């Protein structure tokens, strides 16, 4: 049975500049999966654990965060903070017997880079293989 995952991406202003410049159609041409929804933030350091969990509550099968390289974040430690919060959710998912790789942190260079699209493709492939998120509930 075919399965198209709902993937929510949270990207900082700097790593997602490409989205502004190219728009949805341009990204699609570059190979951005259409089932990845981009949520832009001023900085991933602004992300709260509860915001990422809400994405799962709202039906996401996978969630990822794209922030600056850990040692050169525009806001110094923003992407390091985001990585810690992603790690906290990985732990919580494990406690719930859900695959922790359903959430991931990517540290990407700022500006235009193929890695921005690659991150989306990696997650799309991974989550498609994992199947629907068990947090959506077992069918009764």
């Amino acid at each position, binding site marked *: 049975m075919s399965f198209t995952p709902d993937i929510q991406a949270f990207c900082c202003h700097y790593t997602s500049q490409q989205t502004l410049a190219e728009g949805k159609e341009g990204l699609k041409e570059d190979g951005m999966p259409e089932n990845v929804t981009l949520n832009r933030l001023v900085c991933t350091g602004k992300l709260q654990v509860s915001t990422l*969990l809400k994405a799962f509550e709202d039906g996401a099968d996978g969630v990822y965060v794209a922030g600056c390289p850990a040692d050169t974040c525009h806001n110094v430690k923003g992407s390091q903070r985001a990585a810690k919060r992603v790690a906290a959710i990985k732990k*919580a998912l494990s*406690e*719930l017997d859900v695959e922790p790789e359903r959430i991931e942190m990517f540290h990407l260079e700022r500006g235009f880079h193929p890695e921005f699209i690659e991150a989306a493709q990696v997650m799309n492939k991974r989550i498609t293989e994992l199947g629907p998120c068990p*947090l959506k*509930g*077992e069918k009764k």
Partner: protein
Amino acid sequence: MIIAERKPINEIVNMVSDAKKILLLGCRGCVTVCSAGGEREVEILSSLIKLGMQKQGKSVEIIEGTLVRQCDKEYIDSIEQWKGQYDAIVSMACGVGVNFIANLMPSTRVYPAVNTSFFGGSADQGVWTEQCAGCGDCVLHLTGGLCPVARCAKSLMNGPCGGSVDGRCEIHPDVECIWQSIHDRLGRTGNADAMKAIAPIRDWSTAGHGGPRKTLRDDLTV
């Protein structure tokens, strides 16, 4: 402050697995400062409980609230505002809060969401260390302000034990030997002679070994 840590989420979900409506209560006291049970943690746990229940094919309504404290009757009484809207309370306060709810609300189911760990302080951002054991008979005036009851792995009253190496504890090498630190500190503060005194055998009845403790301040009661 009292340091606590959230229980594993599956443990919490199993506690409340038959509840349909939960009142999830944080506390603005110690557990807010140690990021275990404040408003933000209530928001996170609320999501996790919903997700955990959803995974089991169940749905649950959660009311989120955070009390000023859960160790005072006047604040526990404010739970009345949610009367009839829940069938179980999950408290993110320390064990005192859970007990207070249980004491004051005899017919209400209440569950703990955190493990209450110790009395401590912030050693660094995100790091808390035990500093006091609440033993009820403070000896800090004899030990340079450093507590051997809480901070010596053996709670020795006449230390060090002889097992420490380079000022580190033989049981936990990542922890300083507090008796080494006590000796060093008393020397630095011109009080080295204090170490010559032998502490007598300790009466631990004040430490809770004689049953639950109570403090009565007659000047404060009316």
